[in-house]
């Protein structure tokens, strides 16, 4: 009763699936940019409306601005219901998003909020439901299928292999994998002591969302003549730093060794139902999968590559005898009888 469903060999790891994976992550990245642009565009339209009202009436300056505010606030725009007006948009980023009214919150964000405020709110649980259920089923899939920072780090990975092909020396430093769990626990403890969430300030998906929306604000303030407080912080350089480090120092340095969010996803997805399995009778121990795995895991083990597997399915495609497959079933395997 362990194996319920096995992917047809060659499908799950096919270029089609990989293309889909990259496409989804690109869509998420573009979605964050688009969300920021749409939000600021709506503000821009509002301000333009006020301007138009101001130019129509032309008494004193005081009457102008007062009339503008009054007409805008009591006009049809203000009388439309809150639900109708605000459900038709996507808000936020991968840290926490409101997609047409569906609330999705990163488990790390929720964990931090609970640790620092010592309060569990209803909204938080609603937002947690979808990510936690998906992670219980699919494991750490967020990292390879959704995370926009992971997409950028994959580009760094490509850059890295390009540099290697050109003969530039690149190092591959290995750190201790447990770092991410230590950082997760330490971050939560420090957050609880200080009362301010600290992990979210440098967790790449959160930083990326924040910086992109700040940059779109800056873009609009350049485009239009009204001033926008942009909220740009220096944490964007942190992402650039990680990309540089991943290109020259170590492959997927952040995701493999440091990322506290990835650590939390790994822990939640410990008993995941979908995992990569290796058929030991067909395996020729060629280590192709070990070389291709971006997480530096070993899928050749008969059980599964471990909790840190992010279900990118690259190993499935690389396997020459096709002994690796993606299986959906209960976590416990029956006793292996072969040698």
């Amino acid at each position, binding site marked *: 009763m362990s194996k319920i469903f096995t992917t047809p060999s060659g499908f799950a790891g096919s270029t089609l699936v990989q293309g889909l994976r990259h496409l989804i992550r690109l869509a998420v990245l573009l979605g964050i940019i688009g969300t920021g642009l749409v939000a600021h565009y709506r503000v821009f339209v509002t301000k333009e409306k006020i301007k138009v009202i101001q130019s129509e009436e032309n008494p004193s300056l*005081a009457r102008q*601005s007062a009339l503008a505010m009054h007409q805008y606030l009591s006009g049809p725009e203000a009388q439309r219901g809150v639900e109708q007006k605000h459900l038709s948009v996507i808000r*936020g980023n991968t840290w926490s998003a409101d997609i047409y009214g569906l609330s999705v919150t990163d488990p790390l964000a929720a964990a931090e909020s609970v640790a620092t405020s010592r309060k569990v709110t209803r909204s938080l649980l609603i937002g947690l439901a979808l990510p936690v259920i998906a992670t219980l089923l699919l494991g750490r899939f967020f990292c390879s299928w959704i995370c926009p920072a992971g997409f950028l780090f994959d580009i760094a990975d490509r850059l890295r292999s390009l540099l290697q092909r050109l003969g530039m020396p690149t190092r591959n430093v290995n750190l201790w994998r447990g770092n991410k769990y230590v950082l997760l626990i330490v971050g939560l403890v420090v957050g609880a002591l*200080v009362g301010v969430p600290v992990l979210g300030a440098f967790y790449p998906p959160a930083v990326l969302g*924040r910086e992109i929306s700040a940059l779109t604000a800056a873009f609009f303030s350049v485009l239009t003549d009204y001033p926008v407080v942009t909220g740009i912080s220096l944490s964007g350089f942190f992402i650039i730093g990680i990309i540089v480090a991943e290109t020259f120092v170590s492959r997927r340095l952040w995701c493999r060794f440091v990322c506290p969010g990835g650590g939390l996803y790994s822990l939640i997805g410990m008993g995941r139902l979908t995992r990569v399995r290796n058929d030991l009778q067909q395996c020729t121990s060629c280590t192709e999968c070990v070389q291709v795995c971006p997480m530096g895991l070993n899928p050749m083990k008969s059980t599964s590559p471990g909790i840190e597997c992010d279900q990118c399915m690259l190993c499935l495609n690389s396997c020459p005898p096709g002994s690796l497959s993606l299986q959906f079933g209960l976590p416990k395997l029956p006793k292996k009888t072969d040698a």
Partner: protein
Amino acid sequence: MLLRTVGVSIASFTGLGVFAGLLKRKAAPYPVLGEPEIIRPPGALESETEFLSQCIRCARCRDACPTGAIKLGGFGDPAQLGTPYVLPFESGCNLSLACTTTCPTDALQLLTLTKDVNMGLAVVDDRTCVSINGTGVCGACHTACPFKNLAITQGSHNAPTVHEDHCVGCGLCEEACIVEGIKAIRVFSGRDIT
């Protein structure tokens, strides 16, 4: 292995502690007469420390705001990194309450009535207000006020008077105020900034 874990723990504890200290730094907000205060969006938790601990800095309220009143703290801003705040002199809150419907952690609590909002209190500066100091007849703040004749009433020459029990601190009066530079009517939140 134990030594390594302890070492990593101590190192990251120190690093994160310094980092948290940096996060907590506060710069002076825009130059005003009076104490520096940050105005949080509608429905924000009363206690500033509680608000800071519950807010996850996700920017959903900012994206929901139809008038762009909500700003997020960035480098050199008065508010902490990524936390929402309002600069009423630039853009007041039009009390759409969209931000309160979208907050994922209830740091901004759900509000359905605009009169329940408590962002602060508008205070008129008698020295600079055109209608009060006798240099003109204005009334912009009264016209902009969503609680006309309740929160702001007018005296002779349209001189405004703010009534504490009705003013929600939306800041539309501050935005509408015609006085250049530091506005004659300003919103104070009374939040404890530590």
